[in-house]
């Protein structure tokens, strides 16, 4: 730091480190499992070089592990990024897509699609899940009374709306016993049945949402100011808020419809990145996306290997790691402010 200058708020090296962490996580994710694959051979196979994997190992990598790791990365990036965006938009460090009812709403939307549709629903699922998510978030704010209700009112409203959506979802499942299996398999997490088709549609919506969020990430910092300050800096906060909530809800809804309910990623990862970098800026959004992706890939690796050959639901792993971590963060924050 020069003597008469303040230090940079954000450095590209942080984002680059997060990208490297994601690459390492992906390599571990495709390499380890009931059958371990050689890292050198994996890289050669992926780059199309000679002496790569062959036969069953090649199929295992390209048709089973790789789509699963890519889907895990997409879902992790979506949940972490939308969590960070919700926290900025609502100026609430506890805001999380699940707490505001978006995930339960998306779950209900997905259940309606499964119980009322026939044939291949994968293409329709995200649209139903998205509408469910948006309506649930809208209902949460309607119940809370206003956009900047105090955090406890907002969270309580989110819990109420989420519970209602979950109850309605359970009712639909019970009425359509034929749909019970697909709905339950969806709730427990479809990372187990990830294939390139799922990766394609989920990737399409999640990448659009992430592209929008990363594009507006710098201006999102205006939402950390009062509305008057944001206006004085030439930004209309309402417009940014609307775009941010819509994109974060699309990302969450798609993630939920692709992988079921995976908790804590949206709170733990943004807090981890912001805590380690000691920065609140949304310029960290791309790093948060990378770390969220890496976090879920590693969590899925744990889900696949800890009780091998049986599998743990991935949500169990994220909660096991996430809940104590979250308590640790809260404690550290309280100490810091004393």
């Amino acid at each position, binding site marked *: 730091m*020069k003597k*008469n*200058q*303040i*230090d*940079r*708020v*954000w450095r590209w090296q942080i984002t680059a480190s997060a990208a490297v962490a994601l690459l390492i996580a992906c390599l571990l994710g495709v390499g380890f499992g009931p059958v371990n694959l050689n890292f050198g051979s994996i890289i050669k196979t992926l780059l199309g070089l000679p002496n790569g994997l062959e036969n069953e190992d090649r199929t295992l990598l390209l048709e089973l592990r790789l789509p699963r790791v890519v889907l895990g990365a997409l879902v992790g990036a979506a949940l972490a990024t939308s969590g960070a965006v919700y926290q*900025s938009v609502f*100026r609430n*460090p506890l805001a999380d897509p699940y707490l505001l009812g978006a995930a339960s709403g998306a779950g209900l939307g997905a259940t309606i699609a499964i119980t009322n549709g026939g044939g291949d629903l994968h293409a329709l699922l995200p649209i139903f899940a998205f509408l469910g998510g948006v309506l649930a978030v809208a209902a949460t704010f309607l119940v809370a009374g206003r956009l900047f209700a105090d955090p406890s009112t907002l969270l309580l409203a989110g819990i109420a709306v989420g519970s209602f959506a979950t109850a309605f979802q359970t009712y639909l499942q019970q009425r359509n016993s034929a749909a019970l299996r697909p709905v339950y398999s969806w709730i427990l997490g479809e990372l187990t049945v990830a294939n390139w088709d799922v990766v394609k549609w989920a990737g399409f919506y999640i990448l659009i949402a992430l592209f929008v969020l990363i594009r507006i*990430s*710098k*201006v999102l*910092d*205006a939402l*950390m*100011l*009062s*509305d*008057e*300050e944001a*206006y*004085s*800096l*030439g*930004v209309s906060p309402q417009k940014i808020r609307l775009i941010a909530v819509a994109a974060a809800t699309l990302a969450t809804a798609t993630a939920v419809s692709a992988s079921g309910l995976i908790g804590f990623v949206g709170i733990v990862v943004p807090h981890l990145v*912001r*805590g380690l970098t*000691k*920065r*609140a*800026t949304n*310029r960290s959004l791309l790093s948060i996306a990378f770390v969220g992706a890496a976090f879920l890939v590693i969590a899925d690796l744990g889900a696949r290997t800890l009780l091998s050959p049986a599998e743990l639901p991935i949500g169990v792993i994220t909660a096991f790691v996430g809940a104590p971590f979250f308590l640790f963060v809260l404690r550290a*924050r309280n100490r*810091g*402010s004393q």
Partner: protein
Amino acid sequence: MINIENLSVRFDNAEVLQSINLDIPEGTWSCLVGPNGAGKTTLLRTMLGMQPYSGSIKYNGREIAKNKSLNIAFVPQRPSIPAAMSVAEYVMLGRAKLDGWGKESAHSRNIVHEMLEATQLLGMQSQSVNTLSGGEMQRVLIARALVQEPEVMLLDEPTSALDLHHQIAVLNKVEEIKATGVTIISTMHDITLGAMYAERIIIMQSGRVLLDGESQSVIHSPELRSAFDDRISVHLLENGRPVIIAAKRAAGLDQGVI
């Protein structure tokens, strides 16, 4: 020069600002005084272009709502900064209008350094805002507005959360800013303090301007007490400086020397 002509603002069916007319010369400090709900903050928000209005607000002849290049800074009454944000991060956001969001040129980092120094915040730039005292926080809000290099600075109750020592420190700082040519418009509850610093006092009540003029003449104006429904009393200190306090009618206080 800011010219406000026949300005009216409506919320739903209520007219919260009614036919406001004001001429505010460049490089002066005008202080809006009045009870809660008088329309002071609404007037500031309208000047920022946040509120649809009828009538006109012109800065050097150009309508404010259409003049996107006009640099008006706003210092809020209460901060809404995320607790984890550092002082430098928050102050740096003030450069966004000049540099673009997310940019941090060497020049901007110089300016932020300079303004942190000017507001006695140097050395605290890495601290998160939730560790600051009320006085430090107010200086951070002002530093954020200062790095914007504004032509006009609007301050909403800049001293309301501060003890007397910090009130004086903050108002002295604003006076220094005014001396650099920035036009200052502030709202304040404390008319005595307002009159000590601003050369002009504008008394508002129920969305209207009741009194407007040079601070000392407004304070000594017989209409001042009626503007506050006779609930204030004006006292003169030995040096002739007026002190305005809430009147307790039963005590029979009146204008005099204390």
